[in-house]
């Protein structure tokens, strides 16, 4: 069998709710376990092993939460939009559920990035909040998430709601670069990105490794909590279907 056929088969298998429920249940402990290991290693590396910053002192260490959270905020919006589009085009129920279950997690990460940024800003810029470009676009991203969640909750029929939300998320994706650059030109005070310069990162390797560990840990946490949300949502939506009743009878 060719590789593409294999991938297609795997894709269809994953889209089937009972299969996904079973497999995600098997994977979940490993994902969360790996998350815990990487999270603790990243924290240890970041808070204890990494050297002090010569300009910002100890206060810079909040970077190990702030930056991964900020990365996640945009990443999850992308996941939400892409899975939303998949649900919209192929009417795959699981993709719809993944899309909408991502929204609250993404909003939480965005909120976390804003709060840690604000705490970091106090010693560095001597103020809790500045109308700086990156802070502002992060705030606007939070508004976009809240809009998505509000629309989903307002529509009674959840399949219709998922489709409406997918359209909104796609419109948001088109707008995010425009919003980002408009805000960028409007005002900027934030320090330049630390990691994106791949040829010569402006961060020392002993600081970089814990940061990357934390980034992977955050991704794993997202996948783990996404799985939990999706599993609950699947059970709630499919409560009348055969596989759920069988599952519940098996547990008695």
């Amino acid at each position, binding site marked *: 069998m060719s590789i593409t056929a294999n991938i297609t088969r795997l894709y269809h298998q994953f889209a089937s709710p009972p299969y996904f429920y079973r497999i995600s249940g098997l994977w979940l402990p490993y994902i969360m376990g790996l998350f815990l290991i990487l999270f603790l290693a990243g924290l240890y590396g970041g808070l204890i092993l990494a050297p002090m910053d010569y300009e910002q002192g100890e206060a810079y260490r909040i970077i190990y939460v702030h930056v991964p959270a900020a990365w996640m905020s945009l990443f999850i919006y992308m996941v939400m939009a892409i899975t939303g589009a998949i649900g919209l085009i192929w009417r795959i129920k699981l993709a719809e559920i993944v899309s909408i279950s991502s929204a609250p997690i993404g909003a939480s990460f965005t909120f976390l990035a804003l709060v840690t940024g604000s705490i970091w800003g106090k010693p560095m810029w001597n103020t809790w909040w500045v109308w700086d470009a990156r802070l502002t676009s992060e705030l606007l991203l939070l508004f976009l998430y809240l*809009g998505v969640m509000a*629309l989903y909750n*307002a*529509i009674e*029929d959840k399949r219709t709601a998922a489709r409406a939300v997918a*359209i909104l998320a796609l*419109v948001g994706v088109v707008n995010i670069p425009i919003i980002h650059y408009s805000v960028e030109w409007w005002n900027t005070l934030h320090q330049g990105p630390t990691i994106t310069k791949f040829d010569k990162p402006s961060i020392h390797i002993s600081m970089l490794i814990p940061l990357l560990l934390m980034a992977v840990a955050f991704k794993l946490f997202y996948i783990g909590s996404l799985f939990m949300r999706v599993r609950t949502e699947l059970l709630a939506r499919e409560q009348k279907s055969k596989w759920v009743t069988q599952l519940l009878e098996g547990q008695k």
Partner: protein
Amino acid sequence: MFNAWLQIFKRDLLIAFRRRSEIIHPLIFFVMVISLFPLAIGDDKVLLQKIAPAIIWVTALLATMLSLDNLFRSDFEDGSLEQMTLLKSPLSLLVTAKITAHWFITGLPLILITPLLAVLLYVPAETMSILLLTLLLGTPTLSLIGAVGIALTVGLRQGGVILSLLILPLYIPVLIFATLALQNTAQGFSAEAQLAMMLAILVLSITLSPFAIAAALKVSLN
């Protein structure tokens, strides 16, 4: 195809002229909110002159959003929207007729009344033409983006509040470029770059938003 477009355009204009309150109410809102600011701030000429672009633009944004409420609602309720989806012409094209008509009814009067209000806020004559130009480039974009939000919420009972949550973040680039253009003009710089960006955003929303609107309407009609 163009015939259907023209029919819908004419029909919407006719309905609006039969029910003139639809044209007048957003305008009254616009005038009243703008005159609230000098009352709240005090008759401070320097300060008012400085924040006049912000006042006019934020108010225009809110007035546009409020006026959009009627864009699809009556057609949705009496079923003519469903008939429209059955026509041979694509829905994405037909909605542009409705939005164009709606802009003529609400956007254009708003621009026409702005010079009067700008005088109340001591906007100097040099910035006036740029102010009108930003409104001319910006309000159609607001209508197009807002129509996506309206199309998503038309079937909902508490649509109004949710609508503002959905579309206000999307309005921000237009607001930023318009007010930046006006600030630059007030300081004696050229505003060409911002106006070009506004035009680019307008072209982009004319190109893309009709598809989003049509898809959203089909979801709402379900």
